């Protein structure tokens, strides 16, 4: 069991180290979310609706679209020079490989989500001071559920000819629960309601995330197998 978690940490550590040195994905995703927020400013008629009122939905959509950009490239590096086959050939179990990838993706995307929230707070004067703790918790739960499912499907799309183009088609129909309950909880908290108001939605978000993680751990083996 200890070896398993060492493997998870090794994979996550490798990915984060590569990311830290190249900063490719973080730079692309970061620029993406800032520019998307910028475009939203022009897409929303500010005399008719104040962006603050729909900020929760916009933040989640920006996070998902930006995250998609990075998730699609989860196995990009491994595709070169048969690195993926090498990784599979190591004594590392597929489950550890999956969880390691989820971990690194989640950490990177958490950073991007934090950036998204800050950008929205600055651009659209969204007030975050009401419930910063629970808000961060809801967003982190959402990010984890998203990467748990996204990493699994990214493993699939990496093995197809269509590649990343296929990812949203597979992923988006399944993200409906995440968006519905995530946006609702976020909007409730931003409106200043206490965290006890969102216990029900929080439970479903947790169920989604656990289900996604379990599905990933159980099925990733069949994706990497030759």
């Amino acid at each position, binding site marked *: 069991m200890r070896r398993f978690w060492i493997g998870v940490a090794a994979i996550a550590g490798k990915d984060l180290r590569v990311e830290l040195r190249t900063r490719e994905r973080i730079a692309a995703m970061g620029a993406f979310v800032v520019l998307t927020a910028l475009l939203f400013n022009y897409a929303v008629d500010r005399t008719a609706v104040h962006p603050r009122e729909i900020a929760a939905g916009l933040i989640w959509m920006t996070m998902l679209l930006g995250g998609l950009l990075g998730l699609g490239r989860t196995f990009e590096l491994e595709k070169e020079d048969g690195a993926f086959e090498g990784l599979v050939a190591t004594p590392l179990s597929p489950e550890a490989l999956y969880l390691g990838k989820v971990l690194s993706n989640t950490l990177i995307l958490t950073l991007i989500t934090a950036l998204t929230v800050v950008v929205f707070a600055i651009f659209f004067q969204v007030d975050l001071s009401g419930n910063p703790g629970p808000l961060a918790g809801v967003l982190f739960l959402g990010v984890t559920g998203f990467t748990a*499912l996204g990493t*699994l*499907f990214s493993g*699939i799309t990496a*093995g*197809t*000819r*269509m590649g990343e183009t*296929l990812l949203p*088609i*597979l992923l*988006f*129909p*399944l993200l*409906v*629960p995440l968006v*519905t*309950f995530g946006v*609702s909880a976020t909007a409730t908290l931003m409106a200043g309601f206490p965290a006890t108001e969102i216990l029900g939605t929080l439970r*479903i978000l947790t*169920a*989604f995330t656990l*289900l996604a993680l379990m*599905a990933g751990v159980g*099925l990733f083996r*069949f*994706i990497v*197998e030759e």
Partner: protein
Amino acid sequence: MSLRTVRWAGVTLGALGVGLTLLFHWQVFFWVPTEASMGIVQRIFYIHLPGAWIAFLAFGIVAICSAVYLWLGDDKVDQAARAAAEGGLIFTTIVLTSGPLWGKIAWGTWWTWEPRLTLTLLLWFIYVGYFMVRNSTDNAERGKRFAAVVGIVGALNIPLIHMSVQWFRSLHPQPVVARPDGPNLHPDMLTTLLTALLAWTLVFFSLFLFRYAAARLESAEELRALTRASKAAGDEVPVP
């Protein structure tokens, strides 16, 4: 089950199903009483509801066969999953076309975020993803495994998606939705509905068996071609 049995079962179910389909269309057009509040358009219901029932039944079959395929690796089970998914896609499309046609007159709009309609649309996209994954891998075995994973994860997620579309709707009340369901159905309406359900269930299983048999023939033929090719190559160059 031998292929011959499969084909015979397919023909029998298909003949019965088509016969009953003709019967229920006669019932729908000439026999069943017109619903009082919605009028003639309510008759679409008799093809809409059986379509939805099959769409979800097929998805269940896809998920179970996919899980068994990943577990045992038997190609036959994968062919069954694919056949069910094809049928499911057809009937989901029927639901998605008949629903808005009815909605335009009954609700006054082509589309509302009615939970069941939304769920069916998402189901349709999951089916589409299932086939896109299957057909876009260079290695056929891998495509089957990928598709199986998509089928299983999709099915696991359906209850949660169902919850969210239900919940979402309760937050956003729609114009009053009159629905002809419920136990207080006219007995003739119930008869028509049950005939339609039976008819299309039979048609679905007939299509399912035919597609399954076709897939088995295809793979048998591929295997023969492969053996021939390797034999032909073996005559000239000895294969190590």
